[in-house]
């Protein structure tokens, strides 16, 4: 394979949505017709030149992509690695998620549906969905765990400003997984005119493949930018993994480049040896959750265990099935990053580069810091690491302020 052509990463998933032993469809029969319709819409859209052109134009003119690949020199000096930040935080709405919602909003219109529903954790996907719904004149209902509506009140206001209805979910642990349950229930009842705009590369087929296809531009751009800016591919690509869309988005273009190491950093919370984390791959086991077979945080009876992360966007007890497969196949490595490590990286990026990252993305920075010395030792030189800075941290300022104890009148 030549170094200047994006890699062909094969035909995964299989036609039934399996990535090896992962993925598939574990859903009520009532949803199968809608999933089939969506699968067909996705398949035809991806080969339809006019769809692709419209998507590309929206990404360029509305979302502001391609996002920059920024050589973070002061951070690099601190980490002992040449760090290139993929600035998805600069996209419209402040995260990579806008790519997915624009693609799915186009699909919604293509299917003749007029209402979208979404789940959201941190609120980023909810804001992105509300944004796309406003742009496409779609009715929009966002389900959000009650706990998350409290810790992300600003994003709730943003969604309402954009015309969306935000429904606080009061069942179960009142976080992202429960918001997904509630969105599924809405979808079963309203499937005819409603599209469930899932926010990550998880859920039943075709969602994992569909979301990946809409966010893979992150990696396609980053790969080309590397070649253009430094004349080589990076030694490693790092991203945070909750459900896993930003990581898949940046990994995908590099999967066929054997010399590029892929690292996914999961939310280690208070440590994967405690029961307070959200690291489904490193701390979970094989199971079925939200429509797919994947790695899940569960107890001995298969009941989902409540996850914990300081980052609402990573606070999810499952992971997209393609990540489970990349883990099993050994192509990507998944490691946990604790709340404290992530917050240290958050502060480091603020102070070295003047960039306030999302706490989600701070996990990727912390992970890059952890692997940098190992890579340097292995390669015998300074490694080049592309880090997906998947979102900006404005929404997290309150959480960070509390964490660092800097809220209040005097400092």
């Amino acid at each position, binding site marked *: 394979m030549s170094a200047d052509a994006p890699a062909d990463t094969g035909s995964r998933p299989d036609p039934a949505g399996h990535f090896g032993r992962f993925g598939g469809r574990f859903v009520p*029969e009532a949803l*199968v017709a809608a999933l089939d319709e969506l699968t067909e819409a996705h398949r035809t859209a991806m080969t339809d030149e006019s769809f692709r052109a419209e998507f590309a134009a929206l990404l360029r003119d509305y979302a502001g992509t391609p996002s920059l690949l920024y050589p973070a020199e002061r951070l690099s000096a601190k980490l002992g690695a040449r760090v290139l930040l993929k600035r998805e935080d600069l996209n419209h709405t402040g995260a990579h998620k806008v790519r997915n919602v624009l693609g799915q909003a186009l699909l919604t219109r293509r299917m003749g549906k007029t209402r979208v529903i979404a789940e959201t954790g941190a609120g980023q996907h909810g804001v992105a969905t509300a944004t796309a719904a406003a742009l496409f004149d779609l009715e929009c209902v966002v389900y959000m765990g009650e706990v998350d509506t409290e810790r992300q009140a600003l994003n709730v206001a943003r969604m309402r400003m954009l015309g969306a209805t935000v429904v606080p979910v009061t*069942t179960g642990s009142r976080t992202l997984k429960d918001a997904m*349950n509630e969105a599924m229930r809405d979808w079963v009842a309203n499937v005819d005119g409603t599209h469930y705009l899932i926010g990550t590369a998880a859920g039943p087929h075709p969602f994992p493949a569909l979301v990946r296809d809409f966010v893979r531009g992150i990696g396609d751009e980053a790969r080309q930018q590397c070649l253009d800016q430094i004349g080589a591919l990076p030694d490693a690509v790092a991203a945070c993994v909750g459900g896993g869309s930003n990581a898949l988005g940046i990994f995908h273009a590099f999967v066929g480049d054997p010399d590029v190491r892929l690292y996914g950093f999961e939310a280690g919370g208070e440590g994967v040896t405690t029961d307070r984390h959200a690291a489904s791959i490193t701390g979970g086991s094989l*199971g*079925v959750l939200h429509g797919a077979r994947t790695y*899940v945080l569960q107890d001995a009876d298969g009941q*989902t265990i409540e996850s914990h992360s300081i980052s609402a966007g990573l606070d999810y007890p499952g992971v997209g099935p393609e990540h489970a497969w990349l883990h099993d196949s050994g192509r990507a490595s998944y490691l946990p990053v604790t709340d404290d490590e992530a917050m240290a990286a958050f502060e480091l990026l603020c102070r070295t580069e003047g960039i306030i990252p999302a706490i989600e993305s701070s996990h990727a920075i912390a992970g890059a810091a952890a692997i940098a010395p190992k890579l340097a030792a292995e390669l015998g030189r300074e490694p080049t690491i592309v880090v997906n800075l998947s979102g900006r941290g404005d929404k997290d300022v309150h959480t960070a302020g509390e964490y660092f104890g800097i809220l209040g009148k005097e400092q």
Partner: protein
Amino acid sequence: MSRIGVAFEKARAEGRAVLVGCMPAGFPTVEGSIAAMTAMVEAGVDVIEVEIPYSDPVMDGPVIQKASDIALAGGVRTADTLRVIEAVAATGAPVVTMTYWNPIERYGVDAFARDLDAAGGTGLITPDLIPEEADEWLAASDAYGLDRTFLVAPSSTDARLAMTVEHCRGFVYATAIMGVTGARAQTSDAAPVLVSRVRQVTDLPVGVGLGVGTGAQAGTVGGYADGVIVGSALIRRVLDAPDLQTGLAGLRTLGAELAEGVRNPVR
């Protein structure tokens, strides 16, 4: 003959539908759930559907969610559910188990089939397992002679309907409405259409669930279906009661009303 088929044969001979009553194991406690299900049998419920409580029940409405949460908060384990099944089966009523897939996968599909068989269960209703993903369950249910009920929905295509019922043994579960469980004021117009579509492709009995809560509704659904499945309305009697004894009395009253309903089918 399937295990649960006997109940449908008997009801058919009486010119009526089977009444299926659903309750989560461990709600409000393990012993309380055995008492509740026994009360249902005594009131005239023909078949007991024992639901394995699950943390993420996407097909269930607020009533079953709440009952499941109470059961899980009380610490109910899958092994407890098997004990409940065994105790209720001892009353002589056929017991079918309704379960989301992950608890079974976690227990081990073959091991669960073996233990369900030993407990005297008839088989499984699997709301989030479609036949395409069910290879392991197809094999295990064959090995232990257990029934398997997959769901069909108003949105199922003719091809899927035929494929799904081909994989069923015992009875077919027709979801009356596009939506989650929970009693509703009116039964669905889509249900009779769906039942007649199922009858075109199978001789298996067809049970209708989702939304049935009164004797009159049971009579209406019993007019066109072979089984009337009631969950939330029964569970609510226990959920809303100040204590278990009051709840059991409520269950007996509603169970008798529903049993009367299926004996007065609206045709």
